[in-house]
């Protein structure tokens, strides 16, 4: 059986897993890219407040076609809407919320995450790449819990959950959970714990996929 044949979750299935783990009442920042999808899976009956670092708490879903407002956007510069209870504020306040530890959860994409929770998601390190960091470093260190959502392997089959990141770090020791298309991992002081494996993927399969990363399967 090749890697391609091993079972995996779809993006929606990954997003649903993240969404299910967000507690009722939490204030959450969903990063640009893959994490944006989580918003579509937030559970009915739970009230989650979405924060965007460009100055808004209480972000609602994308507007209907034609209702976009140039001045009402998220951090990815996509049009959004408001929910009742929303509030606007300036950038220093928006980042005070983050850096001051007031956000419950942020969900970020990543190039690499190390087994110790180091995050690399801002720069490929290639010499001719134009660097851009945005709010990634602030988000990673600011939220009470920083979760990453990413495929376990790149399209080229390279591992993204690694013993040590070789891409430039966004923040050391910052990620507490990683949602991938093959499994969900908790990064704890004691080690990398497998929370859940996609159905049909054995512990040995997963161990093979992650390579040198040491996993602890639940007892």
């Amino acid at each position: 059986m090749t890697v391609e044949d091993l079972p995996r979750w779809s993006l929606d299935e990954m997003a649903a897993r993240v969404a299910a783990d967000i507690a009722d009442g939490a204030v959450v920042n969903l990063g640009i890219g893959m994490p944006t999808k989580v918003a579509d899976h937030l559970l009915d009956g739970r009230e989650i407040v979405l924060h965007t670092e460009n100055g808004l708490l209480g972000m609602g879903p994308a507007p209907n076609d034609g209702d976009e407002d140039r001045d009402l956007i998220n951090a990815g510069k996509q049009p959004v809407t408001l929910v009742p209870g929303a509030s606007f504020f300036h950038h220093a306040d928006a980042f005070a919320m983050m850096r001051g530890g007031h956000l419950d959860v942020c969900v970020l994409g990543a190039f690499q995450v190390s087994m110790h929770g180091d995050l690399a998601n801002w720069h490929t390190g290639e010499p001719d790449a134009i660097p851009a960091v945005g709010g990634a470093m602030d988000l990673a260190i600011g939220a009470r819990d920083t979760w990453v959502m990413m495929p376990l392997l790149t399209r080229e089959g390279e591992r993204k959950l690694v013993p040590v990141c070789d891409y430039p770090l966004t923040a050391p020791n910052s990620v507490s959970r990683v949602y991938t298309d093959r499994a969900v991992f908790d990064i704890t002081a004691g080690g990398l714990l497998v929370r859940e494996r996609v159905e049909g993927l054995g512990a040995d399969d997963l161990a093979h996929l992650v390579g040198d990363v040491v996993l602890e399967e639940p007892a």
Partner: protein
Amino acid sequence: MIDKIVPDLETAVSDVRDGHTVLVGGFGTAGMPFALVDALIEHGARDLTIVSNNAGNGETGLAALLKAGQVRKVVCSFPRQPDSWVFDELYRSGELELELVPQGNLAERLRAAGAGIGAFYSPTAVGTQLAEGRETRRIDGRDYVLEYPIRGDVALIKALRGDRWGNLVYRMTARNFAPVMAMAAETTIVEVHEVVELGALDPEVVVTPGIFVQHVVQVTDPFVDGAA
């Protein structure tokens, strides 16, 4: 569902513990959360550190809390006032510790705590007694004193209106320290004159977003009713 509204003052202050640092809003009586302070006296927590601009007036509010013997230390900018006799006596007798902080440093240190700043170089108090023993640094030809954040376990503040997410608006100069104290405390407890429906506060005019607030209790204030 998020519902930060609590039914009564007793519930509102039930998280306070002995030894806590309690930030108390207000500048003189404007913005002073009298009902919450009374509830804290009723609650009885002791050995408190109180952070507030003043140290009580007459026999009510903070002065009553001091008189009840619940306070170990006061951090403030202006304890001495014509009617601060309760503070004066406890301070002179050595029963109360005082940390005197210039008002601008007090506000900025509270904000720093809320904003995750580890410390900052302040232009105020350089070359004075209040900078003695503190680290100073010359930056760009000007001298500064290193100041650290002031964090609260609890903040007690007052607002005009609040909703069940904890979004707040204030009334005139009663706003004063409340927004920075709300940021700086683990648990921010607000007495509001009026609880409004979620969505009733215009997102453009919310002063304290609900993320900084944990409990909201409605306290009818006959003064505001008359004035509004």
